């Protein structure tokens, strides 16, 4: 049986009186590439934040790598790229190199010093992401697409087993976006990294993801892409034309 990296059972999330998510249950196994899609305000980002403990659920159980979220400590096994940084200050004075290095702090004992190997890992990741020339630049000076690549580099530098990305391609031009998807596919296929990708880009996710979860406050569909393409329920939801477009590309 495949190892479960994320398990969510009966999750309900409420913001004040508003119900954001209800009765969410799904599992992600090692090696999966899961695409989570849904309309704006459907609770996709909240779902991921709840899975990482950044948002409290009203009820339900969450486990990461088989450990209940409350007692989970192996954060170095997870890489997370949020849709946007809640606290991001465009005048933040850190260099690309310093930001990427932050991705290596998980699992280190205080005072969390970076070793020579860590610096080499940063170098390697910058090269892998094609941003070596930006290493000494201040993050606030970069374009949205470049910043996104830096943050992605930060989330993959520690070699996480589970990579969670929330709308990572919104600031990217089409060429960089394609390169980005290829990169994720390579990480998943060649390095065995499990990927959970929240996106609006249903056509691209169809090309790469092995599984597809459609969320609109609750899970509407959870299955393989082929299942999605042959689901009458999804035909009714998306319309035959939209479903055809997504599945055709796939």
């Amino acid at each position: 049986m495949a190892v479960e990296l994320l398990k969510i059972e009966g999750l309900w999330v409420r913001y004040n009186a508003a119900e954001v998510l209800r009765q969410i249950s799904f599992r992600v196994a090692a090696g999966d590439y899961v695409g989570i899609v849904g309309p704006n305000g459907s609770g996709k980002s909240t779902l991921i934040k709840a899975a990482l403990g950044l948002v409290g659920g009203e009820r339900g159980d969450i486990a990461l790598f088989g450990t209940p979220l409350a007692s989970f400590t192996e954060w170095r096994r997870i890489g997370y790229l949020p849709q946007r940084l809640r606290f991001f200050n465009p005048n933040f004075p850190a260099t690309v190199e310093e930001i990427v290095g932050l991705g290596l702090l998980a699992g280190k004992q205080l005072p969390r010093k970076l070793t020579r190997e860590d610096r080499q890992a940063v170098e390697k990741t910058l090269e892998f992401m094609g941003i070596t020339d930006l290493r000494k630049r201040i993050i606030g000076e970069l374009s949205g697409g470049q910043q996104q690549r830096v943050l992605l580099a930060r989330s993959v530098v520690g070699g996480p087993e589970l990579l969670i990305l929330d709308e990572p391609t919104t600031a990217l031009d089409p060429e960089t976006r394609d390169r980005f998807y290829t990169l994720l596919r390579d990480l998943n296929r060649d390095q065995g990294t499990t990927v959970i990708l929240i996106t609006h880009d249903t056509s691209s996710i169809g090309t790469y993801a092995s599984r597809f979860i459609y969320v609109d406050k609750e899970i509407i569909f959870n299955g393989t892409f082929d299942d999605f393409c042959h689901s009458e329920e999804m035909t009714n939801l998306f319309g035959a034309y939209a479903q055809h477009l997504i599945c055709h590309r796939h």
Partner: protein
Amino acid sequence: MSIAEILSYGFIQRALIAGTLIAVLCSVLGVFLVLRRLSLIGDGLAHVTFGSVAVSLIMGINPLYVTVAAIPLVMLSSLGILKLTDKARIYGDAAIGIVSSLGIACGILLASVAGGFNVDLFSYLFGNILAVGDTDMIIAALLFIVVMLAIVFFYRDLFAITFDEDLAKCSGIRTATINTVLVLMTALTVVLAMKVVGIMLISALLILPAVTALQVARSFKTTIIASCCFATVSVTIGIFGSFVLNLPTGGFIVIVNFIFFILAFTWKYARKAKG
């Protein structure tokens, strides 16, 4: 009067040593506070310090130990600001405002009960670094060691939560603990800085060197180093300048800091305009 002559005075030597220690502390913490939009916490805690000093004086505590006596109350207040922000979901600036006004109100009431503003309390409002004694210096040195060790030990955690608290949480950093460490260190530093620039001007020492450094620095590390440099040079010029011109030292230090900020700001925009 030559520099050597000025330096021969014991009170100038003590002022320079204590001033440098405090300038370094304020400037390093200031970078984290400014970037986390907590700049005014120094101002808020300074007002609490005013209340704490009033409590100490009314209790008849020896003025030599007023600084130490103020520490517990100011630290508790700093935790109060955190709790208000976190648990009561009050915005940080509003939480600072609540604690700040409470501190100053208590100070005024206690001063009134004690028979009006006495000279001691007034001297804490505006500070007098030239009056720093041996005991003050020892206290400053001890607190400097404690705060600097904490900053070095938690440096990367502080950096991570300053960049983004959510990402820091997902790196396994105990953000609540680090926030507590940051406000407690700020509380200690504010109490310590009260002698240098006075309660009214403490926030300038926390904010100005940091924002000046942000104009010129090219990395997070160099921001902290530049902030320290601006602060220590300002304090040194402030002590010498105020002595020579017979002006209040606290105000002079703040004005020098402000001039550095204007120069750095102008330099940044001139550089940008050149492309």
